[in-house]
């Protein structure tokens, strides 16, 4: 493509450091973008805080996609991503996944109140993962945090939290709706967390200042932002 900085032969590569929660959606988007732009997109999933840290340490990442604008802001303040390149592209939702169903339904807190079935509740590490912080906020505002504290275990990211629950090692987990929408929670019971119980999770993307393909990276970010996202609320 004209305009992209790829002097040598071969196809330029854009490395996207992405929050695990965004990975399934980004993977589908990246596939179509690759076809249109003659570029190779590599996704590097992890917790937002961990990836932000890697970018600060000079990891060869071109685009930062996160579920917490605070990390994007921190990177912009530190000069690690281009402030003008930041785009918001969706809003994340928190869900409760459980290995068991609750008789009579109830609201999203029901699985967390059925104490006899509950040994471990997994959330992402609130220190590194936005969905972990949102999960902590939601449990606190529901008045459950103190009672559940001995049962809480931290996953590295929402992806690991989901793995804990899928393998039955944790009974309940709080993860991103996007993972459930991508079909990764098959066989589990899912309930949407009341959105008023946690602060909105704004998904943002930005171009890393040290990127060797800034124009291409910006096109990826812009295309992502103009995409009619799958973030529409799911009727229950």
């Amino acid at each position, binding site marked *: 493509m004209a305009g992209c900085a790829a002097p040598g032969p071969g196809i330029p590569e854009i490395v996207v450091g992405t929050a695990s929660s965004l990975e399934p959606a980004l993977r589908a988007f990246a596939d179509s973008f690759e076809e249109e732009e003659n570029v190779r997109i590599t996704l590097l999933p992890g*917790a937002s*805080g*961990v990836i932000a*840290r890697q970018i*600060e340490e000079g990891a060869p990442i071109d685009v930062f996609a996160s579920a917490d604008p605070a990390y994007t802001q921190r990177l912009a303040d530190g000069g690690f991503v281009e402030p003008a390149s930041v785009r918001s592209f969706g809003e994340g939702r928190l869900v409760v996944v459980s290995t068991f169903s609750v008789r009579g339904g109830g609201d999203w807190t029901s699985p967390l109140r059925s104490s006899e079935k509950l*040994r*471990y509740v997994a959330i992402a*590490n609130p*220190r*590194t993962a936005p969905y972990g912080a949102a999960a902590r906020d939601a449990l606190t505002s529901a008045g459950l945090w103190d009672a559940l504290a001995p049962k*809480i*275990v*931290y*996953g*590295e990211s929402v992806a690991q939290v989901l793995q*804990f629950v899928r*393998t*039955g*090692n*944790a009974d309940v987990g709080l993860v991103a709706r996007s993972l459930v929408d991508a079909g990764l929670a098959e066989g589990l019971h899912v309930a949407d967390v009341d959105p008023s119980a946690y602060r909105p999770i704004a998904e943002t993307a930005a171009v890393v200042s040290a990127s060797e393909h800034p124009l291409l990276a910006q096109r990826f970010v812009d295309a992502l932002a103009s995409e009619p996202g799958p973030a529409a609320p799911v009727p229950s």
Partner: protein
Amino acid sequence: MDWDALRLSLQVGLTATAFSVVVGVPLAWWIARLRPGWRETASALVLVPMVLPPTVLGYYLLQAVGRRSFIGSALEDAFGFSFVFDWTGAVLAAFVVSLPFLVRTVQAGFESVDRAYEEAARTLGRGELSIFMTVAVPLAWRSVLAGVALAFGRAVGEFGATLMIAGNVPGRTRTMSIAIYEAVQTGRASEAQILALTLTLATLGLLIAVGLAARKGVPSWR
């Protein structure tokens, strides 16, 4: 300073090392006395956890004692006990990775001891347990201590398998190595520095102590 993490690291490291000694020293003696061929096979089997990536071990351990596994669900039904997300899971992981270091080192010690001493004890009518405790172990004492030091070092440093089976639970499974990892990832550089330095000094002190004990020679129960 995360004192919980230091306490937990020492607790996990010492418990795992104790299990390694109880299982590993007799195992090393047994292997050292196997016929050639069998001995190499048994040695190789014991070494497997040393060469596999810790993540593979973590995966195997989850398969073996995870809450849905045969063993894991039986333990939970019978005793309400689970290795997963528990400090005992960290001990299990540390035990599995440290055992080969102990067995390998101690086995070499037993193999270098002249078997004539044991044969002499046997002709004098001593039982196998007595020979093991009063002849074999004292003669291989330095190797035993070296094995203990190596096993403890590996147990304290265990990270990958621990993270997979025990997770990162503050006060319960967040050992020093996991606390350091988290501190670095979240940009708490000074905390990471203090944790790393503390762990380095603590293990260095312990290794020096073991070295001094080794110089003093055989314990007095002989």
